[in-house]
């Protein structure tokens, strides 16, 4: 009996650690992405950028295996039956954020967009905003598991930063189309800016759902 109890506690602890690790991965990928874009703007497809892209890919792989493990454990051990579907959806949505970071970083690597010098500060600002957005989303989600009364505070930050990123990306697109560069370049840059800004949009969608899950989380 004592052994069964111990094993139950250790299984619970292990799953709790996995959920925490999964949230760490979002913060990791956001930080790495920010760094990678700064390197890209400075050195384009350099060895260091390649290394950072690989790092992002590895984080994405780790997050995928953690997600599968969490989902599998929740179902196989029949845990949190009332909130399991919500937690699975939350984890899936968070995983979409990580995937999008990976896709965008890879897109930079493949397409090698040529951002004129005057746009560098703005693209850095946008990347900073989407990273902050993802980080706050991770914190909000972590709070859902431990201290759900603070979920609203972090979700509010996500909403605020997402709105800011929309403004920055909109202004950038406007400036690009007002410039003299060839239309093909304009379209490529506009598209890639849209993809970066999309990360914040996905985080916002996550926050929307999380707030609904939080209402259900209350006893």
């Amino acid at each position, binding site marked *: 009996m004592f052994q069964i109890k111990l094993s139950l506690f250790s299984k*619970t602890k292990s799953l*709790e650690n996995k959920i925490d690790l999964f949230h760490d991965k979002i913060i990791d990928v956001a930080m790495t992405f920010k760094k990678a874009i700064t390197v890209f703007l400075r050195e384009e497809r350099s060895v260091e950028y390649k290394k950072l892209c690989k790092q992002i890919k590895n984080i994405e792989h780790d997050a995928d295996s953690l997600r599968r493990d969490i989902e599998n454990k929740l179902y196989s051990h029949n845990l949190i*039956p009332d909130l399991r579907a919500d937690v699975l959806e939350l984890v899936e949505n968070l995983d979409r954020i990580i995937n999008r970071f990976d896709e965008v970083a890879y897109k930079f690597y493949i397409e090698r967009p040529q951002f004129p010098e005057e746009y560098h500060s703005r693209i850095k600002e946008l990347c900073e905003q989407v990273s902050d957005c993802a980080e706050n989303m991770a914190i909000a989600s972590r709070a859902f*598991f*431990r201290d759900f009364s603070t979920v609203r505070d972090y979700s509010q930050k996500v909403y605020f930063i997402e709105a800011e990123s929309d403004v920055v990306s909109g202004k950038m697109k406007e400036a690009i189309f007002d410039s003299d560069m060839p239309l093909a370049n304009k379209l490529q840059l506009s598209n890639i800016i849209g993809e970066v800004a999309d990360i914040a949009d996905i985080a916002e969608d996550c926050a929307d759902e999380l707030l609904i899950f939080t209402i259900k989380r209350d006893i």
Partner: protein
Amino acid sequence: MDISYFIFLSSGLFLGWSLGANDAANVFGTAVGTKMVRFRTAATIASVFIIIGAVFGGAGTSKTLTELGTVNELAGAFMVALSAALAVYWMVNSSTPVSTTQAIVGSIVGWNIYCGFETNTTILIKIVSTWIICPILSGLISVLLYFGIKAYLKHAKIHLIHQDLYTRIGLILACAFGSYALGANNIANVMGVFVDASPFHAVSIGNFHLSGTQILFFIGGIAISTGVFTYSKKIIKTIGSSVMSMSPIIAWIVVISQSIVLFLFASQGLKNIMIELGIPPLPLVPVSSSQAVIGAVIGIGITKGGREVNWSILGKVALGWICTPIISASICFICLFFLENVFNLSVYH
């Protein structure tokens, strides 16, 4: 030992089975309904603790029922238990959470009316008043627990996964406590009318002693356990989720509230402590676990704004409460007539 005793006892065992099917579902129905505890696990724990409660804590409430009407012939006791069992079975079959206590009280009153004996109105009022006090008390306890746990969880910041584990452990412990309280409180409904004619003698194995009544209660406990395993799943569907959708923590609050109420109305020890402290003691009366559960659920439902409570199901439940004693009293009255006039059996003296 007279074999006819066991033939007459069969109706009590049938009632025990009905009680197991119906009332035990109240104890762990919410735990199983919220998918936190498997039916088999809950049923096993419930069975063991119902028997323990019946054997070691069932004496107090039996006395009160005997005071309501001393069914003094075995054939009469047979019919009293059988009519209560039929009333409960009928209600269980129509998925209405029913009170075994009300069924047996109805039957005893039916027997009293048939025999022309006066029903002890003081005791009847005492019992009926507990039907009102019981859900109110259960509701109050559940509301207090609800606010207490809510405040604690806000302060403690327990991880959701750990909270799930603690809730599961809490539900299993509450299920054990609730089953003990149910056994102690409700065994009187099943075996109370057979106590006077019990042929069992006390047995001792080393330091372990069982009186004749305890052996009778043990047999009743086994009948209840059989009901738990064979028929309680259907009732769980009603109690577990239909009255109000509930989270596992609410399920725990509901189980523990009704267990506390059942325990308060069954514990001789607690009664003695209250008397010693100068607090007016609660009467030892078999109360309805269905009423206690519904009281707890409504208490929390109202606290949460009342929007989640499925009031139409509660109407059906309330109708069952009124109909049960009337139905069982009527069945008892009619069947006693047949038993006496067709089978020539003496049903009272």
